[in-house]
């Protein structure tokens, strides 16, 4: 039978064998209709992976850029942060824009240096956590069997060890701590949560047909992981990386505040620690502790906002539902809603129900 093209009658048989409805007994030419070219998409290649432009993303990126720029360029324009020749505990003035500390350091200079220190710790710790979670999460998820059991065991142990106490114990072992050591310690204690998520996601991706198809085509395991599986995890990895940075910066600030942070560099945490020991709160020297605290909060806010935008790539529902709710509200306000202008409350409840 495979030797001949089917006649009209046989074609009818094949289709009727499925479901008998007048709709399905259409001609084979229908496929021509299916061949209609999809709308030329403007979001292809790597751009399809980028978050869509939105208010959230703009504010988040704005905050992040401003803080990074301050950290990079700040130290060039301020005086030496360890120069104690200034008068002590001066409130903000044109000479010292953010005042001075008890020991006569310029707060703005310290802040610029501290931004650099905190960001470096955050990025290095984030990269370490990312690398470890990729190895333990993706490898475990892809390998399965004994490899999975072993890697998962390590992940689970790291997951139940409380992070900050462990970091404190490790930190107290080293009397002199460089910022790199602090970043390293924060990195190796914070990867387990991401690894669990990555393992689950990889297990799901691994059983997809396209991974089987790549294996049938003859791809080797490392390439299957790196080229077929990993790209589909990129949005997740980006979100986890940003989260790891926030976590590390907060962790570093906490450690430094307790006096267990880096001893060789200035960070937001060490400034806060100095302010605490210098009784800034008691003497009302708000210019000493408010700026570093504010920067920590703003950076966390910025990274979280970017993270929300990335979340919308992973889960498009997050983007579509609020959009629809907004449209519905607007329509109701303009009197075009289904419920009509007389029932504004009913419409809002539905809109919220959808976005929830």
């Amino acid at each position: 039978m495979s030797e001949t093209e089917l006649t009209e009658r046989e074609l009818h048989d094949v289709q009727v064998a499925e479901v008998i409805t007048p709709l399905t007994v259409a001609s084979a030419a229908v496929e021509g209709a299916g061949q209609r070219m999809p709308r030329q998409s403007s979001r292809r290649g790597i751009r399809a992976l980028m978050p869509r432009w939105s208010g959230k993303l703009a504010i988040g990126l704005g905050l992040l850029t401003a803080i990074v720029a301050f950290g990079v360029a700040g130290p060039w324009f301020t005086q030496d942060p360890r120069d104690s020749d200034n008068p002590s505990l001066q409130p903000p003035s044109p000479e010292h824009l953010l005042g001075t500390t008890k020991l006569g350091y310029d707060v703005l200079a310290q802040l610029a240096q501290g931004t650099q220190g905190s960001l470096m710790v955050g990025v290095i710790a984030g990269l370490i956590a990312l690398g470890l979670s990729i190895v333990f999460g993706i490898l475990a998820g892809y390998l399965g069997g004994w490899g999975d059991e072993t890697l998962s065991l390590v992940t689970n142990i790291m997951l139940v060890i409380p992070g900050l106490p462990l970091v404190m114990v490790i930190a107290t072992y080293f009397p002199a701590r460089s910022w790199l050591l602090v970043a390293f310690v924060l990195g190796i204690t914070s990867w387990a949560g991401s690894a669990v998520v990555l393992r689950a996601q990889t297990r799901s991706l691994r059983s997809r047909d396209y991974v089987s198809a790549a294996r049938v085509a003859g791809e080797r395991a490392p390439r299957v992981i790196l080229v077929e599986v990993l790209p589909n995890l990129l949005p997740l990895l980006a979100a986890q990386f940003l989260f790891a940075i926030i976590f590390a910066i907060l962790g570093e600030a906490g450690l430094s505040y307790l006096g267990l942070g880096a001893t060789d560099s200035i960070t937001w945490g060490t400034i806060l620690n100095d302010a605490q020991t210098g009784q800034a709160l008691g003497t009302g020297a708000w210019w000493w502790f408010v700026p570093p605290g504010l920067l920590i909060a703003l950076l966390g806010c910025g990274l979280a906002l970017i993270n929300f935008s990335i979340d919308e790539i992973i889960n498009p529902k997050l983007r579509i539902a609020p959009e629809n709710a907004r449209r519905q509200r607007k329509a109701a306000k303009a009197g075009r809603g289904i419920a009509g202008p007389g029932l504004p409350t009913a419409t809002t409840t539905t809109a919220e129900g959808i976005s929830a």
Partner: protein
Amino acid sequence: MSATIMPSADATGEARAQGQGGSLEARNLVKDFRLRSGLKVSMLHAVKDISFTVEAGRTIALVGESGSGKSTIARMLAKLEAPSSGGVFIDGAPSGSRGRALERYRSEVQMVFQDPFASLNPFHSISHHLERPIRLHHPGLGRAEVASRVEELLERVQLEPATRYLERRPHELSGGQRQRVAIARALAPGARFIIADEPVSMLDVSIRLGVLNLLAELQREAQLGVLYITHDLATARHFSDEILVMYRGDIVERGPADEVILNPQHEYTMRLLEAAADPERHGALRDEVRRAE
């Protein structure tokens, strides 16, 4: 052991007489899955001692309900699962399952998956899906040669003009177009045998015929041996020379396609045939439901 009612000796003998070389043979394939539920371990016999031979240029249909072990056989032949016992023989020689031997086997035997929406990686372009197998199985080719082969493959599966599809991603194509890409990918290494695991079951009824005709045409061109796995008896009869009916891991009936459909011997085959819609009995089901009320 399977209840072999109609030995397929005459069908396979014909192909040999034509002088078409090559065969893909499943010999006494068994696959058991260990099911673990807490501490209890039970065995699921997915495939019980199955043997058949796919000859070059011929199509064998494997028909059966969901869970009858059809897809497990496909995965074993594609070397995605290792059989519990038994083996896969190509041209009479045992096939390798690792290293160079596996590579050679893969360049001979390729698979088309059931779901074209899942079998293409959403991250990669169409050209990537076709380039990789060509590069893997023909490492000597230059960039331009690979590109021209990709275009040639797309044209062979009637995706023309090829340049229009190269840079697209799977989500920009329709189900039928995607399955054509999947078929092109299976052809890319220059395979002699294609395992088609329900290649049209996820497609619209209206475009199934196009894809099946394409498969038949490609088979004719390159004298491919095709294992066509399906649950649809009508297409199995139209497109295959021989039909194997599977039920719970066993082959319960086998023979030339028309013979199995027109003169079913096994009870299960008869039930399958009855379940298939038949224009002669238009409305029979409706009457039955009404009577039940």
